[in-house]
């Protein structure tokens, strides 16, 4: 679940791939499902553990919220340490334009603040975590539509 900067036809791909996959995933006992097609990479995660329980954080919510017309590449900012997520002030809001190096939040681990900063600027398309949520290594935190 690293940054994804190819241009994709989100709506078409949702129709073709995500819906049946989500259905199959729901019917399964899988906790994580990866697809790596030429024009589309996707990972569906079920967090069955009591903590950090954002069901299908990566795929399901973007599928509902990214408008069909969006054709911008997406950067996903992921946690690189295990800790507790906190949003930074001023609070980042979905739809907002965010600029390079802005601190959107931080992961607190062993008393240390590990900032989560925007790489390439763009439109904040997705917040995958909530305030105070435990996150593990590689867990997606924010999605940025680069150049939007």
């Amino acid at each position: 679940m690293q940054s994804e900067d190819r241009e994709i036809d989100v709506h078409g791909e949702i129709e073709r791939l995500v819906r049946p996959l989500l259905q199959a995933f729901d019917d399964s006992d899988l906790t994580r499902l990866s697809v790596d097609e030429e024009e589309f990479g996707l990972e569906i995660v079920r967090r069955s553990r009591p903590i950090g329980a954002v069901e299908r954080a990566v795929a399901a919510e973007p599928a509902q919220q990214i408008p069909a017309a969006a054709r911008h590449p997406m950067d996903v900012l992921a946690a690189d340490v295990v800790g507790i997520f906190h949003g930074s002030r001023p609070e980042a809001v979905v739809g907002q334009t965010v600029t390079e190096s802005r601190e959107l939040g931080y992961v607190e681990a062993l008393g240390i603040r590990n900032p989560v900063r925007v790489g390439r600027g763009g439109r904040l398309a997705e917040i995958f975590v909530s305030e105070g949520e435990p996150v593990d290594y590689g867990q997606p935190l924010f999605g940025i539509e680069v150049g939007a």
Partner: protein
Amino acid sequence: MKKVLIANRGEIALRVNRACHELGIPTVAVFSEADRESLHVKRADEAFCVGPGPSARSYLNIPNIISAALISGADAIHPGYGFLAENARFAEICRDHGITFIGPSPEAIRAMGDKATAKRVMVDAHVPVTPGTGIVESIEEARAFAQSAGYPVLIKATAGGGGKGMRAVHAPEELEQSLNSASSEAQAAFGDGRVYLEKLILNPRHIEVQVLADAHGGILILGERDCSVQKPSHQKLIEEAPGPHLSSAFRSSLYEVARQAVKAVRYVNAGTLEFLGEGEHFYFMEMNTRIQVEHPVTEEIFDVDLVKEQLRIACGEPLSRGQQDLRVRGHAIEVRINAEDPANNFAPAAGTLTTVQLPGGPGIRVDTHVYQGAAVPPYYDSMLAKIIAHGADREEAIARMVRALRETTIEGVKTTVPFCIEILTDPEFIAGGAGIGYLPRFLAREARVEAAAAR
């Protein structure tokens, strides 16, 4: 103990998970991105990804592991074996964060982790170590040592390395000349002609003693294991308990020494003292301050659950039984099924396991984390499974192991299964008590047989 984080992967993570669950303690797994689909993740009550595939960034990532423990509310960490199990700094960090490290104190780990310190501590505790001298000043001194330690002896250069200035001396009449030539060679090679002597142990057996000690001074000596069947890299391949053909004098002396050593180190939790055995003598090599891969053979013959004992000891409880309650029950053998190719110098293999059929039936225990369809990532050690066979005697244990290995079908990677069947049906192994030279000798013999067949 409210919740245990298991800072490991593979079969030992499952082993610890089983002990915790049998005691009703919830568990937290940590895993690398390469182990997302591993059984140790699925079987734990919670799981945290702590880094990418390479161990240095995941299973050795102390901050992420400690953070996972704190976040999940785990009040204890079991390190398994390998990775952080003998890292004194890690044990200290656990202590600093109020987390119980399920193992000995950082001080004990540190003392036994440094070979020179460990040897000094053991000598002070009257534990026999390989006899040796300081810098030899005279031929008389050398002669006296060789006389008392017994031939053969080994002359080594203080500045030595690469065999330069090293001589094996098998008889008194060779001593003086060897000493002179070794010294000259060392002088020429390193500009330092000083040499010392050590007893040369020609084909020792690897004999180790399992110990358990609680925080109240209780000590259990759980007999010995013979782990002499080692690959040329000195990795153990087949282990058994009790050690075959050991005299009762050898055993009682060994156990007494082990008890002294545990007391000297003020050791608490499970540990293993490794010795080189030769005839009626044994010499301390090192102490492993953790649970070992081959612990199940001891569990089988003593009917004890060593990992549960580790948990109880870490909780401050006394040992569940006394020395007088222990009774040896038959014989047990463990074979390590590794994803490696014995014909190609045991080169490790990674891949996907297309078929996994494991053995069962009477006297067979299987400890494994693999399953049909599982991936074997390239980052970690190559062990796929441990098969443990127990029998009324060594003969029955071997017979059971052979039939269990014949039942084992693992496809997708090369494994040590067929090779281990050859070992277990080899008359020299069956006779019992072969030293650590056995497997290299077996390999050379096989190579000769193959070469002859090719001619």
